[in-house]
């Protein structure tokens, strides 16, 4: 059986040495979006430009999930939070840190692509997550 590395969903993020979330930017009102939209959710202008968002930001809110929610296929506990990016956008994201006490408000965070689980075909399913800058 051949195995590979597959994103949890195509088109959400790039998966290389300097990963980035793939969003869009409205050419009419200037707002950034994530995920990418084909119509601006703020002003309804069509065809926002696809854009790679900054890979670093600051922590705005965080918690950890301690029991598996329906449909979840990864490990427990896991961190969930909101990271604010320089584009003026706040993103809901997994966090690599599952202990809320280890994080602090406005902490510098960076984007990672991390393993989520192994699917039925043996592929490693990966997703986006933010980690404290410099965390191993």
């Amino acid at each position, binding site marked *: 059986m051949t195995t590979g590395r597959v994103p949890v*969903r195509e088109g959400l993020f790039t998966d290389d040495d300097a990963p980035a979330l793939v969003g869009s930017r409205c050419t009419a009102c200037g707002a950034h979006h994530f995920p990418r939209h084909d119509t601006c959710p703020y002003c309804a202008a069509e065809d926002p430009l696809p854009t790679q968002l900054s890979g670093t930001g600051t922590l705005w809110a965080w918690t950890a999930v*301690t029991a598996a929610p329906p449909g979840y296929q*990864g490990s427990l506990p896991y961190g969930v939070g909101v990271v604010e990016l320089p584009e003026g956008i706040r993103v*809901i994201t997994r966090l690599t840190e599952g202990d809320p006490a280890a994080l602090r408000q406005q902490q510098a965070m960076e984007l990672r692509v991390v393993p989520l689980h192994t699917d039925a075909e043996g592929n490693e399913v990966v997703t986006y997550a933010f980690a404290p800058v410099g965390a191993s």
Partner: protein
Amino acid sequence: MRAAVTVAGVGMHPFGRFAGVSTTDMGVQAVRTALREAGVERGGFQAAFCGTAYGGVATGHKVLSRLGHTGMPIVDVEAGCASGAAALMLAAAAIRAGQYDTALVFGVDKMPKGIIRSSFFEPWQEEAGLAATPSFFALRAQRLSMTSGVTKEHLAQVVVKNRRHGATNPDAMYQKGISLEEVLASRVVCEPLHLFMLCSPNEGAAAVVLRRQGIAATARSGGAAPVILAAAVLRSHLPGSVLSESTPLSGLADDTVPSPTTLAARAAFEEAGLGPADLHVVECQDTDAARELISYEELGLCDPGGSAALLASAATGLGGRLPVNPSGGLLSKGEPLGASALGQVVELVRQLRGACGARQVLGARVALSHTVGRGANAGVVILTR
């Protein structure tokens, strides 16, 4: 002056878990009670509106099948936690417009235990762990701690208050008080929320009969002033708030976007010609303990940032200036989504009639019901007597 809409009758199937009792059974019980109270028989109402989120196809029709179909329009309404408020809004508007004299509104759901699974989320969001409802509650709770100084003890105090209220409500699932220590000793689901700070999805039904004022009632209203439905408002969200009940994957770095609840409350107060200072009793969304405090701020019961102080003043407990969730709230009753808003309305109608016994808010004449959830959908209902 436009026609006033009165509440002619209310009914409940208690909230809880009832093995072997179907969604339809619960709906029938609530509807029968409300119709009986209103003195309305089969054929005595011209339309029915049923709020349900998980009931499935034609939930309302299945209930009314058991009561003798008349061919009337039956509209099933899904608006998440505010489904019942949405049904009420549609029925009230139709009566005001002269379309009907009398309409039946009911809500019913039978939820499985545990974290609610929602088809709202795409499968990948569930797979990646970004669809855990309590995690969104927890993120809002943490932001509230930053903006309003709300501590874990405040959150636990909300639970203690509502469970104290619910202890004398025969329609509640938990009819037993709880101590601050017990709440804080329950396991952490999503920091800062412990298990007992979250309401339990469960089962139940509630029903309300609306009638245009002036339509002769065959009921035993006993000459008492009727309860008036002064406003029934549903609103959705504006884009931009990352922690909105619309649960987007991103938002703007902008804290000024009004919440769905604020939009609904403003519209409801305007419709009723009343303001927060006029209220005597409130039933608000307390799916988690922080949600009740957020509601204080979003409904205008206190200034922004003032929810912890309002709670600590004891104003929102029974005997206080503005009791909130005298029924025990969803923290005591549990949450059958489609029935929760109308369950609040049933409680408030009984409060305005002075029929709530040990949990009666003395002298209550103006009441507000609030629900908010997935969609986003926010419902605000104002009742007066």
